[in-house]
């Protein structure tokens, strides 16, 4: 009996020592959880895994991947927002998902629930058609849509997604009625375009790269041309002022320890400048673009105002 008591006392001591030890040790002294809001093997996961490969080069602690997929990422994003802000839980975020989910689906977080570490990917949206499509340019598509109200079918992933916002912006700006057809994911969307169920699709560059041989990319909704498809003109060059992206970023919960945030920012910045990382990203078809936390935060807040106005105008939210 006495022996057991001593043992307990010893364990209690050890526990206290280990806790107090943690408080004094330099951050990070244990592995850091990385929440991925999409399934393992998906595009977001592939990008984060490439980051992890180089993380080990600049940090002595490992990243532990935790998958929390569901509801288009909202489950994982909530998990990041509600995590303890001790710097040991961070995760990947997608924009405009984190803007739209609180607006449309009453998700339990907002764009102010996060401390942004950096932007890693800026995936512009493109206008794509089948190789044998009768449309050879964006201009022809828009002219057809204007002349034949509602006849043009545009494939989108959604609803209430980045693609949907681009669609709303286009029909609002260029005043033509078209029929959107929504798909659950980019695989279905690509299949529908190739099978002729829709005439055109607005999709991400990363997604159309998979079926590159079967598609013609007619325009890219980015500010400047993209190195993956340098021959494709931007929508602005083509005379249509549309800019639309899906961005991927890393973030910690709001109120995270300042020191921890500084450390994370530093490591991610080093990774983003690593030539090996850049080469791997290119190989995986991930349009890399680094922004630091504060620059990215500004982008998110600007886009929030813009998207909210667009959704209100379309009558999708009050």
């Amino acid at each position, binding site marked *: 009996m006495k022996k057991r008591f001593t043992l307990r006392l010893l364990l209690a001591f050890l526990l206290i020592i280990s806790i107090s030890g943690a408080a004094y040790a330099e951050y990070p002294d244990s592995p850091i959880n990385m929440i991925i809001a999409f399934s393992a*093997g998906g595009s977001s996961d592939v990008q984060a895994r490439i980051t992890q*490969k180089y993380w080990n080069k600049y940090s002595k602690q490992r990243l532990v991947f935790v998958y929390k997929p569901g509801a288009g990422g909202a489950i994982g994003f909530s998990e990041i927002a509600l995590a303890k802000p001790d710097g040991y839980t961070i995760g990947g975020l997608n924009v405009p998902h984190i803007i739209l989910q609180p607006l449309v689906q009453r998700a339990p977080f907002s764009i102010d629930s996060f401390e942004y570490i950096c932007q890693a990917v800026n995936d512009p949206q493109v206008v794509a058609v089948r190789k044998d499509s009768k449309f050879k340019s964006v201009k022809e598509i828009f002219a057809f849509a204007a002349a034949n109200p509602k006849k043009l079918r545009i494939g989108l992933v959604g609803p209430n997604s980045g693609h949907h916002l681009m669609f709303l912006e286009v029909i609002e700006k260029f005043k033509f009625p078209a*029929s959107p057809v929504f798909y659950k994911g980019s695989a279905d969307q690509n299949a529908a375009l*190739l099978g002729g169920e829709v005439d055109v699709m607005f999709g991400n560059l990363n997604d159309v*790269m998979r079926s590159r041989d079967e598609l013609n990319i007619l325009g890219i909704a980015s500010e400047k041309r993209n190195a993956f498809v340098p021959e494709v003109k931007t929508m602005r060059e083509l005379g249509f002022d549309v800019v639309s992206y899906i961005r991927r970023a890393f973030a910690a919960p709001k109120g995270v320890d300042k020191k921890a945030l500084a450390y994370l920012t530093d490591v991610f910045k080093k990774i983003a400048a690593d030539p090996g990382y850049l080469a791997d990203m290119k190989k995986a078809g991930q349009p890399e673009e680094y922004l630091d936390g504060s620059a990215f935060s500004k982008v998110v807040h600007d886009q929030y105002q813009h998207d909210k106005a667009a959704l209100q105008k379309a009558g999708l939210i009050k």
Partner: protein
Amino acid sequence: MTEFIVPALGHLIEPWNIILMVAGLTGGIIVGALPGLTATMGVALMVPATFAMNPTSGLIMLGAIYVGAIYGGSNSAVLICTPGTPSSVATTFDGWPMCKAGRADFGLYTSLVSSAFGGIIGTVGLLFLAAPLARFALNFGGPENFWLCLFGLSTIAVMSSDNMMKGVLSGAFGILISTVGLDPNAGIPRFTFGYYPLVQGIEVIPAMIGLFSFSQVLYLIGSHKPFIAEFTPTKGAFMQVTRELATKCKVVLMRSSLIGTLVGMLPGAGGEIASIIAYNESKRWDKHPEKYGKGSIEGLASSESANNAVIGGALIPMLTLGIPGSAVAAVILGALMAKGIQPGFKVFTTTGDLAYAFIFSQFAVNLLMLPVGYLLAKVMAKLLSIRLTFVAIAIVMLSVIGSYAIRNNMLDVWIVIIFGVIGYFASRVSLDTGAMALGIILGPMIEENLGKCVDISKSLDGSVFDVFFASNITIILMLMTALSFVTPLIMNKRKKRRNAACACGTPKEDGHA
């Protein structure tokens, strides 16, 4: 193609690749057999490991895990009436009665041989018909998939031909459950009752674990039996099964494998529908449909050959068009892309070495599965000689861990428990849990595809019926669905007539169920 055959075969006889195939198969079968761990998860978990390998070895291993896991799902379906993966729901219909009748080894071997056969037919399709089939698969859009799912759902009518009302009621309950979560067409939450995690909906796998395995545990504990089922291994069971499959079930195996290959390559549909449709068709065309559901070897063979044939089918659009035909194919696609390999018809020329090594490895994997699966089946059958109390505890533990592992979410554990209770009471009043599972699986697909039809109809200035009648495939599927609903009536009539004509009773049956 010919110039790639020799180097591709060269890859296959590398010892390292053979080890990876065997390891992948073993791991896959175990993952598939554990309720809650699915093929998708097994393959996804191993993707990071492939980053350290050369692309060919990595791809060969992922393919082996895929094949193993889809077959492995049948082990738990036969032994504890729990589909290990959603693809093996239809395997429980005849596998479990077989096990209850003390013929568990026959069930396991039937699954094994049928799976390998289906896998090989699917791979033949992949090897020789990839180009034309990929183009054909693209014809399946919203309206076609909508009717394909309804056709799958019509199985309920055939399944529960003796009490159609209860079957339909069970299916409707399943569909109702599937409406919880985000509306796929409006993107707003439904039936979440203010509890945010419900926006992700009721995940199929925990619901199935609950309906089948948890409820089974409740039932078994209440039954006071010492073991799950009586079982003494029969000598030469494997040879007997193989002989029976080669003679009696030739047509069933062939038809089911073709159905599997065709359904597999459709981007929206996978093993869960293929096995159900194959089962349905086997029963429809059989001279003695009444033996299905009572432990018939044909029923088991059709479901298992179809879901393994799906693999070859699902890889067709993935390799040629970059469009995955199943969730697992999507994960493998991700691994390919991460290696910088661009899918497309050129995959057979520019990276032909890799593509053909992968396809040939699929043949090898399906053949290797026979010895590997045989040994594992012997081990798994031992489960039946463990006392029920221990087995019950193990099943509950695995169910909870497996369901949590899907999304790392406590909600899924609650779903298992709640659906366990629902399943238990449902079988008490002889509602059909199989039909409920079909409703839960097919409900979201039906709704999503109907939404596309409505979207498309707006561009035609017409109704959804204009969309339906615009496609020949849809019209054929509509006719088949109608036929499927009438079949039970015809079958009942036939049965009555036969019973009247011949008083010597129904034909010989396998079942002691």
